């Protein structure tokens, strides 16, 4: 037997570790190394702060017990039990540990110090991959939890403006008015011995003093609303709103648990909250009375998104939201047009294409829309839709959604037509796949219904279904996709592009997201899936055999990761071209994930060419 340096590991620990991923798929030496470098602690709710709040970082592996991983806002991210790891995100990213543990059942936990974790990462690629994937998954799953709480869930105390402005009941009315003027408030709380006894509002001064010709020297007690409704500081904003609506009041004193008045919450405070809520904005757009009002509401969109992007975790949701807002603008403008110009001469519907259809819109996206009307239309009736197209497109430009440089807008005659005319246009692209036809296909085959007669949209889809099953067209599309290369070399290094200022960058949109979109569109067309959103298309593709489940998951992951990164840089790095990134500015984990994503896209690209373009290449 060799001398002590190679310690004989404890067999029971080794048995346990060997059964866990990733060790079960690695040579025994890996588990051996782990066991010889780990520490064991027993964690309870009483000692966890001492044992876990160490400045040294560890990979934790649970041997027994149950622990909840809780994020910074107190939500349970996941429940951990025997065989689960935690602590790796911080080991991989070098960032501080954000989540903390809540002990459900005390138990044994193995700790592997950072340097030993790093050693295993270097030595065993599968070990590295396991934790990078687990981290990616954790990131993704945490994005799907709705984190940015909607305002109705906020506590009243968060909405309450100033501290309580109070007055005694025997004070003179004029003193109350002066106090309100000085504090700049529209209401005052009347307290007796520190307890709430009534409130006075601006309206009371008008109705109960001036209109009633009461002397300003009379006592506050005479005009106050005694025993007013109130709310506790820990109640939700929603309860406050409910109380106000129910009793038709605009002011609610806020009390703490000891019933001491803390301040006032007003209906204005609540309205201010609503204004920052995109859903409310969509609601307001649908109710706007004029195109001026629509435009004014649209002006609020950029500010709202900036505020909103701080509260949502999954920033790719912003694409969905912007598309929703654009849909609302188009729908309302159409209704306003009909109010002015009269009912349409025949049935029609609005459709959109490209990024709006895929729900990937950004603030820089331009218009891609069209009008479809009934085959029964008479020639002289077409003028109505020309005016409708011009009206909506024109006002959309005023709303901040730029005109399409390629003219894909309903103001252009090429983007208006009967169902049959639209089918004919598609037919030309499919039958003669010129480069321009390929470009058009990419935009027009991502389409979505927005407003009007849905049956028309259905018949357009039906008309296109037969057309889409053209092998030659698919082969041309696959070939076209393959010409757009993924920016990664043979040995997994990035291939950077350079702009005229010598900035080196990667284009995440053209070289990443767009390729995934193109691939998924091709498979979706092949399977006759009438959806435009890439994630929805991927979800629908699970029912067809053209892509394996694993390929679908990989593409979903890649798309989410790239989209997330793309939105992130849109906010953070304005000096590069839009959608571009310098990989040097990424963390090592992000760089790693990005390479992995590009690698997966490359594989999917090759598989697609093989599947659809075998003959023509």
């Amino acid at each position, binding site marked *: *037997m060799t001398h*002590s340096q190679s*310690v*004989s*590991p*404890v*067999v*029971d*620990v080794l*048995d*346990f570790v060997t059964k866990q991923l990733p060790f079960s798929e690695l040579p025994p030496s890996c588990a051996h190394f782990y*066991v*010889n*470098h*780990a*520490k*064991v*602690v*027993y*964690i*309870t709710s*009483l*000692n966890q702060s*001492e*044992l876990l709040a160490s400045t040294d970082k560890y990979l934790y592996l649970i*041997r*027994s*017990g149950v622990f909840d991983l809780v994020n910074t806002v107190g939500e349970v991210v996941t429940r951990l039990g025997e065989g689960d790891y935690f602590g790796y995100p911080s080991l991989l990213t070098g960032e501080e540990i954000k989540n903390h543990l809540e002990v459900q*059942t*005390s*138990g*044994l936990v193995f*700790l592997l110090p950072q340097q030993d974790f790093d050693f295993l990462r270097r030595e065993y690629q599968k070990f590295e991959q396991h934790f990078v994937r687990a981290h990616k998954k954790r990131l993704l799953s945490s994005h799907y939890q709705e984190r940015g709480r909607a305002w109705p869930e906020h506590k009243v105390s968060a909405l309450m403006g100033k501290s309580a402005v109070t007055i005694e009941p025997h004070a003179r009315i004029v003193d109350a008015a002066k106090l309100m003027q000085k504090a700049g408030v529209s209401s005052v709380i009347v307290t007796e011995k520190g307890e709430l006894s009534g409130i006075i509002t601006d309206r009371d001064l008008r109705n109960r003093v001036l209109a009633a010709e009461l002397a300003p020297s009379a006592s506050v007690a005479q005009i106050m609303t005694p025993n007013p409704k109130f709310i506790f500081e820990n109640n939700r904003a929603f309860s406050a709103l409910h109380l106000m609506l129910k009793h038709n009041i605009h002011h609610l004193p806020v009390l703490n648990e000891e019933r001491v008045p803390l301040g006032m919450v007003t209906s204005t405070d609540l309205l201010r909250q609503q204004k920052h809520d995109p859903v409310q904005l969509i609601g307001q757009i649908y109710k706007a009375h004029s195109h001026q009002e629509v435009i004014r509401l649209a002006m609020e969109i950029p500010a709202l998104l900036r505020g909103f992007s701080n509260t949502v975790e999954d920033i790719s949701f912003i694409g969905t939201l912007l598309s929703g807002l654009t849909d609302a603008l188009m729908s309302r403008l159409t209704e306003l047009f009909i109010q002015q110009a009269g009912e349409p001469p025949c049935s029609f519907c609005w459709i959109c294409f490209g990024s709006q259809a895929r729900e990937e819109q950004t603030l820089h996206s331009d218009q891609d829309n069209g009008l479809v009307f009934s085959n029964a239309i008479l020639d002289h009736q077409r003028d109505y839709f020309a005016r409708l197209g011009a009206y909506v497109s024109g006002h959309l430009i005023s709303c901040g959604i730029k005109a399409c440089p390629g003219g894909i807008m309903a103001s252009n005659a090429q983007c208006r037509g009967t169902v049959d005319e639209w089918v004919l246009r598609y037919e030309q692209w499919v039958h003669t796949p010129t480069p321009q036809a390929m470009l058009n296909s990419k935009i027009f085959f991502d389409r979505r219904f927005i407003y009007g007669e849905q049956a028309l949209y259905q018949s357009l889809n039906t008309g296109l279904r037969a057309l889409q099953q053209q092998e030659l067209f698919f082969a041309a599309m696959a070939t076209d996709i393959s010409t757009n290369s993924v920016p990664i070399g043979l040995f997994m290094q990035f291939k950077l592009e350079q702009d005229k200022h010598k900035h080196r960058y990667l284009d995440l949109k053209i070289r990443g997201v767009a390729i995934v979109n193109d691939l998924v569109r091709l498979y979706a067309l092949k399977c006759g899936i009438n959806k435009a959103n890439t994630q929805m298309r991927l979800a629908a593709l699970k029912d067809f055999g053209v892509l394996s489940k694993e390929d679908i998951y990989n593409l979903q992951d890649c798309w989410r990761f790239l989209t997330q990164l793309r939105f992130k840089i849109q906010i953070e790095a304005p000096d590069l071209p839009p959608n571009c990134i310098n990989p040097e500015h990424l963390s090592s984990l992000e760089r790693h994930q990005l390479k992995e994503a590009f690698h997966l896209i490359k594989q999917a690209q090759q598989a697609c060419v093989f599947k659809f373009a075998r003959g023509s290449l």
Partner: protein
Amino acid sequence: MYLSLLVEVYSAMKWRLPQLFQRTESALWLNSELLVVDLELTGLDPNSHEIVSIAWVLIKNGRIELQQVQHKLNSDVKQLAQSPVYHGIGEHQLAQSGERLEQIIRALGAELASKSLVCHNASLDWGFLQKYMNQYGVNVTPVHIIDTLKIEKNKLLRSQTYLAQDQLTLAACRRRYGLPTYQNHNALSDALATAELLLAQVSHLDRQGVIKLRNLVC
């Protein structure tokens, strides 16, 4: 006569003396180093039976250091008798991978200096260790001797009056804290099992940060 009584009391308490003197400055549990030791024996009597193997595990700052475990087989064993039934170590294995007992005891002595000793049923293991330490002139006294069996016994006696014999085995104690069942019963597995048991026992006492080692000595 009084003198001989005094000598008897002294020798009975000898190993506890250091802790009597250090009562005022016993180290905090979280700042201390403990060596958890387990012996596999050929029987229970230090005078007629032998040590088959010794394993030890270090607890430092409340953490078990798996990097520091040791498992030594005694190549000097003369009479294994029926004991392999319990520890599964055969004569062949001892001859092949064993070390001289003196070497093992000296290594353990060096490790134990300035640390506390932890055993499950310490009087048995410490009885054997003392005998051989004396024999080889290893003069080491642990700071404290902590017995997980006694900790458990006292804890149980506070809630019940009668203790069944099998309530205090290492496996039974571990089950009470929900610790995993170990399949192997060599000295190393048992030493780790004892170390984990101590961690669990300490964790169920209040106010971790201020527990001193002497609070664990019964």
